[in-house]
């Protein structure tokens, strides 16, 4: 029968589509594992000697001034073992200034080329140690150079295959819709062939007319409409002036997720005045440069957290920071040409409210996250709390005052607790709901 034939062919298409989308997702998974495999291989085949020990020494002793690729306080060290002979290198690392004083032409020139900065002497290193370091620096630029393109490919591929999966799903949907229409049509045809009457819909006009004539029904619906309308209007009006969820685009894409989350930098490292003053403040750029003098490139792992933005994008943002403070990456010097960064202010209470950070952060010991939300997961900063009066008052009613370790107020705490007959004082008991405390 025709009907049956139709059905099997549709389900076949369906199964085919499913298989297609599955195979795409499998393919992307296979690519991921393949990339991970090559990574492990390159790491293993990094070279002879003992680059592992060398790396440890390098990271603890030399990395404060040298990078493998790119200038820091001292020149880049990759491949430096081929530039000089070993004896010279031993002497240089053991005591470079002695070598310079002895008039060695190479050393003297090197010293002059690097703004006459003296390299620390490392007499404690044995020749073997230095060999290890040199083995590490001679590794043929393995990890970063192979990794970066590999990483990029993986990201792009999985992005592409995601699109493919989505496309396949859309296709499946379309096929389903077409199938429905076709099934409907064949059913009708079968019905017609078998002589079954398909019930026709009655015209709706009479229903509408009946409704319009029934005044009671009209009245009830009007009242209902007005009530729901009023409800929504009220809801709309109440949120005017509340900026919850406000997420402006900042001049530098600064990610709290990367800084406070992944790298675990304490909030107060940057927002240091929250400890001691009313405002929490946005860090001045010299605070950024405490780290970014050294961290000039984004090398974050390419796990799921960074899929939205690419490495190049992040590097560009760090470059924006350098442009703002006037830091020249290649010469490692300030140029003196600065331009202020115009951060867009997000949290902003009206002028008639007084809010003090140190009262809440230092005295009450409230965590930043309680008011600002899970900041360490925000790629882009946004306002988490409504900052309405009800929000402040609610918290004052619910939050206990931190009494422990506060000898200064011990007496008043005890007296108030007795007065209100409670074990634990809330901020409201202390007067945290008095208008004058917040409105002045």
């Amino acid at each position, binding site marked *: 029968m025709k009907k049956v034939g139709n059905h099997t062919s549709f389900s076949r298409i369906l199964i085919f589509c499913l298989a297609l989308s599955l195979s795409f997702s499998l393919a992307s998974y296979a690519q991921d594992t393949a990339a991970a495999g090559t990574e492990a291989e390159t790491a293993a085949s990094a070279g002879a000697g003992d680059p592992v020990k060398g790396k440890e020494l390098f*990271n*603890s*002793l*030399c*990395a*404060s*001034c040298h990078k493998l690729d790119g200038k*820091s*306080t001292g020149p880049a060290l990759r491949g430096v073992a081929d530039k000089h002979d070993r004896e010279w290198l031993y002497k240089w690392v053991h005591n470079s200034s002695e070598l310079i004083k002895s008039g060695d032409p190479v050393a003297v020139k090197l010293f002059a080329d690097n703004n006459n900065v003296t390299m620390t002497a490392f007499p404690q290193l044995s020749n073997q140690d230095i060999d290890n370091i040199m083995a590490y620096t001679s590794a043929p630029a393995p990890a970063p150079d192979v990794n970066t393109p590999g990483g990029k490919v993986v990201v792009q591929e999985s992005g592409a295959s995601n699109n493919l999966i989505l496309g396949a799903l859309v296709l499946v949907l379309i096929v389903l819709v077409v199938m429905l229409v076709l099934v409907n049509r064949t059913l009708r045809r079968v019905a017609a062939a078998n002589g079954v009457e398909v019930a026709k819909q009655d015209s*709706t006009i009479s229903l509408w007319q009946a409704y319009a004539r029934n005044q009671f029904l009209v009245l009830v619906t009007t009242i209902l409409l007005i009530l729901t309308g009023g409800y929504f209007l009220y809801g709309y009006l109440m*949120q*005017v*002036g*509340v*900026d919850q*969820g*406000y*997420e*402006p*685009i900042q001049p530098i894409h600064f990610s709290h997720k990367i800084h406070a989350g*992944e*790298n*675990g*930098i*304490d909030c*107060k*490292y940057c927002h*240091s005045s929250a400890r001691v003053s009313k*405002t929490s*403040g*946005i860090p*001045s750029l*010299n*605070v950024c*440069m*405490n*780290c970014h*003098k*050294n*961290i000039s490139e984004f*090398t974050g792992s390419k796990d799921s957290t960074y899929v939205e933005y690419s490495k190049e994008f992040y590097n560009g943002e760090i470059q924006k920071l350098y442009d703002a403070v006037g830091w020249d990456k290649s010469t490692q010097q300030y140029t003196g040409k600065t331009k*202020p960064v115009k*951060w867009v*202010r997000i949290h902003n209470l*009206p*002028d*008639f409210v007084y809010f003090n950070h140190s009262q809440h952060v230092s005295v009450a010991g409230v965590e930043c996250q309680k008011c600002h939300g899970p900041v360490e997961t925000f790629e882009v900063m*946004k306002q988490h709390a409504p900052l309405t009066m009800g929000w402040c008052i609610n918290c004052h009613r619910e939050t206990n005052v931190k009494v422990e370790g506060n000898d200064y107020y011990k007496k008043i705490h005890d007296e108030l607790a007795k007065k209100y007959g409670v074990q634990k004082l809330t901020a409201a008991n202390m007067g945290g709901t008095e208008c004058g405390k917040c409105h002045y």
Partner: protein
Amino acid sequence: MKAIYKIAFLVCVSAVATSCFDKSRPNYQYFPNMYEAVPYETYSESSAFRNGKEGQLPAEGSIPRGFSPYEYENTEEGYELAKANLKSPLDSTEVDMGKGAELYTIYCAICHGDKGDGKGNLAKREKFLGIPNYKERDITEGSVFHVETYGKNNMGSHANQLTQKERWQVAHYVMKLRSEL
């Protein structure tokens, strides 16, 4: 069929209405006369100053309350002098190891590690390399204070995050950590 058109129309209208909320812009406000400050707010722009900023550097030569002048210079010689001569002004009752530990955890542990072994989170993740173990360095409380104030090589100055007194508290705590390493 008519009902379907109506429902579709309603859905479209509500979609348009709700999509008006643009999260990159602040919301509307009722009569904001008392919302926006007439005086300058922290970090706002202001035409009162030539560089257009409200935040200004203090006038040259002004000092904060409780400040005592620091006479060692930001040079190699200054560092050596501070290491040899500079002594903490805090007496034993003023040294508060709890406070020092708290500040150290906020400002230093991210690089130097909680124990001062140079294995802070940034070093572990290989973001920031070349952080010494305090034990390896020949440091005194004076030199620690000097380094906190001016920075050294790749370490930056922390003078704007910590007051003088707080820096001394941290310096005492660093010396304690070093003795325990």
